[in-house]
């Protein structure tokens, strides 16, 4: 029997993923970002955006870790085994044709 699949869109995981969303959407609203400022010689808007691009990756790593910890790792392994089995069957049928 396959292990139960945890809810990927749990409130906790959605809250983590919402952090970069807020970060990006706040760009034009923050006076210290949205102005003709240079941070380390680079426009503040560019630096701020780069921070949140990296922030997106970091947030999704946390979401992924949380999902796998809640049983996602087992569900992934079961799904992979199922896909491998289907591929094997498909290949065998193809070989007989």
């Amino acid at each position, binding site marked *: 029997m396959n292990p139960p699949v945890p809810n990927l869109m749990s409130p906790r995981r959605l809250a983590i993923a919402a952090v970069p969303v807020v970060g*990006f*959407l706040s760009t034009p609203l923050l006076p210290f970002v949205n102005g*003709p*400022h240079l941070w380390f010689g680079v426009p503040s*808007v560019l630096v701020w955006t780069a921070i949140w*691009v990296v922030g*997106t990756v970091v*947030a999704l790593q946390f979401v992924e870790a949380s999902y796998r910890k809640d049983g996602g790792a087992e569900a992934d392994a079961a799904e992979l085994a199922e*896909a491998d089995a289907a591929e094997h069957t498909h290949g065998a049928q193809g070989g007989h044709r």
Partner: protein
Amino acid sequence: MILTTAIVIGIIALGVLGMSGRRSTTMSDWTVSGRGFARWTSWFLQAGDSLTTFSFLGLAGIAFGGGVVGVFALAYLSLSAIGLYFVGPRMRQLGAERGYLTQADFFADRFQNKALGKVTALVGAVFLLPYLQLQITGLGLIVELATGSAAGRGLSMVVASALVVIFVVWSGIRGVARVAVVKDVLMVAALLIVLGGAVFGIAGIPEAFAHIHSVGPQLLDLNQPGWDKTFFLTAVIVTSIGAGLNTFPHLWPPVLAAKTGEVLRSNYKWLALYQLALFAPIFVGLAATQKLPSDTTGNHVLLETATATLPSWLVAVVAIAGASAAMVPAAAIAMGISSLVSTNLVTVRESLRLKVNTLFVVAAILCSLAFGLAGSDITSLLLLTYGGLTQMAPATAIALRKKVTVGAVPVLLGLVVGVAGVAWITFFEVPIGSWDSGLIALGPNLLVLVVAEAVRRRTRGAAAVSVRDAVGAEA
């Protein structure tokens, strides 16, 4: 002439690469390749679809005229990766269980309504056509700007279109994935080369920004007319909703072809990093304000900077990368259009479906090439593409739920009203300031959907009561 020849040879090499695999023999194999794409194949395919000729030509042009507002592309691409991280695995799972080959299959099955499948297929195919033309025209423009030859433009468009037809027809999604690997590497290399040209040929990074800060500080914030806060917020929100819910039909096969949900999650959780390459065209566009006349056409900025700052052999590399940036999305879009038409719009025997599909691949590319060569302006339709396809977002969100409790008719009515709204705003030039028409049209779309669903539930409730009364009376 040597440059044109080198570029055409590069384009041919890309086409040959796409044909190097085995031939697809069934529609399912052609579209989703046995649903067995492992991590790296899937990654390159999805990364390849995310950067197009817009990233290559358009973004530098926006930065040239609008300054740092070009970062809206990084914002929506990152936010859409978040959306797709959550919904992509669910789409793949439903596709594997129910045998979907297209986005329209998903709608028809989830709402148990073939008409909805047909309407979404029609909307998707019509809106993708100008997007396909954009890629082919963009490819021609890249070659023309790199070589200075108008004849090279037409020749490269014809050669690239023919090769895309051949490799797409031959190996379907596997061919696209193979070319995408080379395209993804070439694209980053080309953007870095152009960046290097701007840094060494115009000004270093801090020097360029210091110069802009002193002579044109308006390019450093999001307060310019037309490129203001409202533009940034509405464009980012609407595009993130549309792309995050995968409303572009040609992006469905890569999702459906992934081997597992984990493969997709792995792609999306890293995909935003690939978008960092887009800082290169933004910097080039900003730096070019010191080099090019202010009336330079936006789409010409990146390649005019390249030709002004790089030796011709590096310009050829950049042009081949630009051509690949057009060919991969063009191949995916042609696949998207043809599979929607042959699977969801025409009735045909299963044994003939792949052959009929081939005809639609050829027709879609020929049509776009003809519009492109004739210089016909169907770009006004392109204005509808993003906003129009985003109107499928409410239906997608509803259909992804465990149980679909909303009727097909309310969803269909909402979709039609939303698309009509975008068309009305665009063609009648309704003054909406810097708001995005797609976001505005989502309002009536949702309103109609909610009202029609309320009516449906009330009618269904009344019908159930009258049936119960009739049964009670008989008893």
